[in-house]
């Protein structure tokens, strides 16, 4: 694995190896007074975020620091063209400064793919073999989110294979949904997407999952339900009539949570819109794994950096 751009870069064995490494790192850090491993000492990891993010950026930074990498955060708000330096120039500049890894979040789908192509093409000029990690590109993918979700499901359910996972909400605009559908399918889960037709992309029928418009028909068979953020800032209108109608049709209310099997887990990639997508009492309930997702995020990102920069352990 040279870069992590999409979950389709990972087959089941590679994804499982990452999750296993994350587990081992979690165990290694457990109960330590100084949460620091020497693994990436002397390596430079740069986060380059073109969108607001708290949890993902901090999670990567903490992951790097716990592995003793030198971490630098670049906040590059705004799009590249017409507002100064191009994405390519920025990326190559960071590579030339010796960045072993650039972790990028960008509003354009495919931005991480482009960075990887430039980094590889201009390797001789930058003098650094820079690997790229996609931390969310437009409405395309967010691979480490899907990995941390898989890690959380494995913790809570014992396995991902054979489990039925419902993903509810704005699939159309969600990079989390895309990464999860394809990663969970690779790991053998049975995925069902639940959304009104306006929030499902054309062609979704060809994804490795089932489609439903009726959340109440699905709840009793789910091992886990993941509610997606309804991304109001991406809406261009008329996707659904009102927040009220959305909450009535698709919100994870107390009544709906009660219809889930006893063992079922509730996930949310955050940030949550409490009340609309998910009732506060459900988000804070015992079946909620939302904070476990955040904890696992650090370990999964440590594993990703470890596999990319130090090589996957045999």
């Amino acid at each position, binding site marked *: 694995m040279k870069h992590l751009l999409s979950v389709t870069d990972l087959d089941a064995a590679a994804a499982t190896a990452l999750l296993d490494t994350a587990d081992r790192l979690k165990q290694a850090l457990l109960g330590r007074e100084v949460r620091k491993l020497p693994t990436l000492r002397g390596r430079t990891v740069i986060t380059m975020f073109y969108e607001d993010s708290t949890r993902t950026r901090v999670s990567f930074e903490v992951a790097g620091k716990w592995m003793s990498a030198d971490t630098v955060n670049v906040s590059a708000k705004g799009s590249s063209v017409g507002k100064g330096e191009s994405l390519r120039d920025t990326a190559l500049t960071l590579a030339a400064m010796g960045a072993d890894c650039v972790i990028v979040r960008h*509003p354009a789908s*495919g931005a991480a793919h482009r960075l990887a192509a430039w980094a590889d093409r201009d390797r001789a000029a930058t003098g650094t073999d820079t690997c790229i990690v996609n931390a969310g590109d437009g409405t395309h993918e967010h691979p480490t989110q899907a990995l941390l979700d898989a890690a959380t499901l494995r913790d809570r359910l014992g396995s991902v294979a054979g489990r039925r996972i419902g993903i509810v909400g704005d699939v159309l605009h969600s990079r989390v949904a895309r990464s999860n559908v394809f990663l969970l399918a690779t790991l053998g889960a049975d995925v069902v997407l639940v959304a009104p037709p306006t929030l499902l992309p054309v062609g979704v029928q060809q994804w490795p999952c089932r489609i439903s418009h009726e959340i109440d028909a699905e709840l009793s068979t789910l091992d886990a339900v993941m509610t997606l953020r309804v991304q109001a800032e991406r809406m261009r209108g008329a996707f659904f009539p009102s927040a009220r109608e959305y909450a009535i049709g698709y919100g994870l209310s107390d009544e709906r949570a009660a219809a889930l099997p006893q063992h079922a887990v509730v996930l949310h990639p955050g940030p949550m819109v409490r009340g609309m997508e998910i009732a506060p009492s459900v988000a804070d309930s015992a079946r909620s794994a939302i904070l476990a997702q955040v904890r696992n995020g650090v370990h999964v990102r440590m594993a990703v950096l470890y596999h990319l920069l130090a090589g996957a352990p045999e």
Partner: protein
Amino acid sequence: MPDLLIRNARPYGEDAVDVLIGNGVIAEIGSGLTASDGAETLDAAGLVLLPGFVDLHVHLREPGGEESETIETGSRAAALGGFTAVFAMPNTNPVADTEVVVEHVHRRGAEVGLVDVHPVGAVTVGLEGTKLAELGSMARSRAQVRMFSDDGRCVNDPLIMRRALEYASALGVVIAQHAEDHRLTAGAQAHEGVVASRLGLAGWPAAAEETIVARDCALARDTDAALHVCHVSSAHTIEVLRAAKAAGIRVSAEVTPHHLLLTDAALTSYDPVHKVNPPLRTAADTKAMREALAEGVLDVVATDHAPHAAQYKDTEWAAARPGMLGLQTALSVLVAACVEPGLLDWHGVARVLSQRPAEITGLSDHGRPIAVGEPANLTVIDPDAQWTVRGAAMASIAANTPYEGMRLPGRVVATVLRGRVTARDGKVHQS
């Protein structure tokens, strides 16, 4: 100007003849012809002779976009691609919406002298879709504008489109529509379908094209005006056009080489060299385009030659400008897409690349048969040649070709404009 003798050429791929050209017209066709002293000769044994190509849709970028293309470099690309006339779209800076700008473009084209450059005038002031540009003044100017378009943008307002068609009908000019309902394509980045969904690129639904074409055909019917549809990309649009033509509506349509050959499967690399508007669609669409071109529902191949300097293309997908080079690869792509599979013969190539485009725009000196007394606007082709596309080696300033590294069949050997060789063996012959 010395005479030109083309020996052993096969007009439309038929039996070899000699063609003698003098004073810019075809003087004699026969065998064993001899040229006068000082005449240029061109040995065309095994080569196909066609009427010079006419491109209804190019972007020469001048004025305002000279970092990507100029009228001179675009003319060189046209000559090398076998073209003797091109129609330059008005989305320049300033926009070609007055006689001042169209006359400038026309004059620069004539000064370069490699290809007849016909400026296309804007339909609306500033391409803004709200106020009709002075179509009459542009039509009557020295540039003699024959085609008007807001290309790059759709004339979305149905009332403005109706008025443009009505007004144009009295001028004997054609309105060329970039058919895209902008309400349906806000933010669109790729063909709405399986590939775009997986890649997280906002979809450009085919219905945004079909609905405008259907609407405009009804408007053309009511106004008895001539409508031309730019760069048809969707199989469904073919059905709309077929019905409109059957009903006697004066509508013509073009398809680009890239919509004949390329599909959205190329988008998975996110390399914006594949970004174009309308977007690359599916294999079913390219198949429908090829068949409709052979059938004549689609009238012409037009390149939509759209140079963009590297800084506008070598970016993330969303930031990249749409468009790709077309002039120097058009013939080869058409050969690969339609001639080799047996959908078009050389008469068919002449029809879609020369005769029909000249008819649609009322050009009397292009698209003519290869016959004595006709203007000597000709293209000589090696049908058996293969070549590898290199963007950097092309005449355009920009190098944004989606065919980079591809091996394509068929090559333009020479281009003749009114008896003068403008390009030969890959080299431009400046006068």
